[in-house]
């Protein structure tokens, strides 16, 4: 799919708006993960606006493409996108996020939130679930695709690699995994805390179709997704170079904004940068 300049501009505007929504949500509630939410905005916007076969009016439609946010702590990004494409009212974002009796849990909950295909929050599980969904489609003769977003810290989990071998062995080519290489995990830089280098070689050696891109560049994301669709017999890993906290200068690459909400001054400044 060739993306033209005008379309890319629209997507970029959308991404900017989603970042504002995320900021609003986390600031108002004074709880939630900004950094890792900002690093996946372009990926989610590309998927939900350009790629995935979905019907927000019919979230349980059997033929829909599936999405799993394996790094579930970045739910704010997903909620902002789901609200924007119409799965639920936008008011939920600020009224319900992380609140008692709320529809928007701290981590994605498929029973409470329309549009969530799988609950998550405990890292490491999502790729196995993606395999199960892909098996399900294969067994039932359905052609839906399964997209999953995994954190770079999250790839420390052994289960990610258990699932990687299952997907490759069974040639689950309907699976596309985005690996969010933002270079930071909870305690600090991935290179210092737990290096997974060489990441691309790891996925290749597990017999995956590997594509490396700039995870904030829409044309690159859309081209990669197209290539993934053409892959037969191999699942695809799209390794996305990203920036944690992307879009707000003083949040970029700052471990502080992994899980600490912004104070009022930071919020105002961030809002200024995102307007």
């Amino acid at each position, binding site marked *: 799919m060739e993306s033209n300049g005008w379309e890319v501009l629209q997507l970029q505007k959308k991404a900017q708006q989603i970042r504002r929504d995320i900021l609003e949500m986390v600031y108002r509630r004074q709880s939630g993960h900004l950094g890792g939410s900002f690093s996946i905005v372009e990926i989610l916007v590309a998927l939900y606006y350009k790629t995935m076969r979905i019907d927000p009016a019919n979230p349980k439609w059997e033929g829909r493409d599936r999405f799993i946010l394996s790094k579930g702590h970045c739910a704010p990004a997903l909620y902002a996108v789901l609200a924007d494409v119409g799965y639920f009212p936008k008011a939920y974002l600020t009224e319900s996020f992380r609140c*008692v009796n709320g529809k928007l849990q701290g981590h994605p909950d498929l029973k409470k939130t329309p549009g969530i295909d799988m609950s998550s929050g405990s890292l490491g599980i999502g790729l196995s679930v993606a395999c199960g969904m892909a098996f399900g489609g294969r067994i039932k003769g359905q052609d839906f695709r399964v997209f999953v977003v995994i954190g770079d810290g999250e790839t420390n989990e*052994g289960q990610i690699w258990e699932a990687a071998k299952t997907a490759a062995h069974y040639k689950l080519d309907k699976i596309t995994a985005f690996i969010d290489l933002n270079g930071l995990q909870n305690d600090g830089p991935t290179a210092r805390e737990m290096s997974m280098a060489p990441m691309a070689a790891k996925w290749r050696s597990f017999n995956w179709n590997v594509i490396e891109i700039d995870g904030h560049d829409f044309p690159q994301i859309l081209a990669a997704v197209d290539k993934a669709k053409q892959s037969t017999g191999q699942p695809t890993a799209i390794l996305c170079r990203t920036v944690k906290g992307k879009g707000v200068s003083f949040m970029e690459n700052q471990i502080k904004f992994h899980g600490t909400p912004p104070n009022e001054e930071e919020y105002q400044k961030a809002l200024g940068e995102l307007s």
Partner: protein
Amino acid sequence: MKLSFRDALKESLLSLGQEYPALVVVTPDLAKSLRIVDFKQTFPERYISVGVSEADMIGVAAGLATTGLIPVAAAFAMFAVEKPFEQIRNAIAYPNLNVKIVATHGGICVGPDGATHQAIEDLALMRALPNFTVLVAADALETRAALKAALEHKGPVYLRLGRDEAEVVYREEKEFIIGKADLLRSGNDVTLVACGPMVAKALQAAEELEKVKVEARVINMHCLKPLDEEVLLQAARETGCMVTVEDHTRIGGLGGAVAELLVRKHPVPVEQVALDDQFGESGDAEDLFQKYGLTVSHIIAAAEKAMLRKSSQIFMKERR
């Protein structure tokens, strides 16, 4: 006054690190969240982060223990216990290795992160494991005492802490004896047996009950295993009814432990203040305690019910 569990953990590990040269901390990318970065800086050679891989943490801890070191595997209860439970069973409990698993974030007190991060069944799981000693600290000072007791004890120990701050129960250094509960308040009308941050609430409930002339005995059951049978049986005999209080599912935790004992040795009415058989959700801890029935007034109501059951039993006996 409230003090933080995690600050207590941070400080205890620092000072116990001096005292115990064999102490090694293993953690899965949660040093910042557990505030054990200071330990890392002070004893870099005795700090191992395995990244986000909890099963690995348990295996590494087991291996360390076989070399004579004393590993403390530290994480949120969900990721210290529930994620790598089978590894704990077969690589620590079964070979009876000297590993200490220390977990913050026990219960729905976790709050906004929601159900995926609220370990509400960890005590049931850990109690079920042979060889394990299971401890729950009520407040900051007890955290330190329990950690020291865990290090002194030879064999696997699970120590559960809360997430944030807890109302202070102990104001002075205290001794922590594994297998011995703390009797915090005497009384002969009803016994409130609590653990963790719920102990402070049980004490508040006892104060409220005193206003209506009910003398409640309060026990801090900070050691779920081995259970202090003596103090419980004595309380059952002398008060004739009990309320167990915990931030945990009603299945298999403190309430389960107490009921298992009493049903065998001295049955009396027992009411449970605990979570029903369901998951928690996101929300401020106080809102969740209210919704899920873990407040002081819930304890009072349970005490009244337990006493009512006791007196109707006495009434029935007299009629017969």
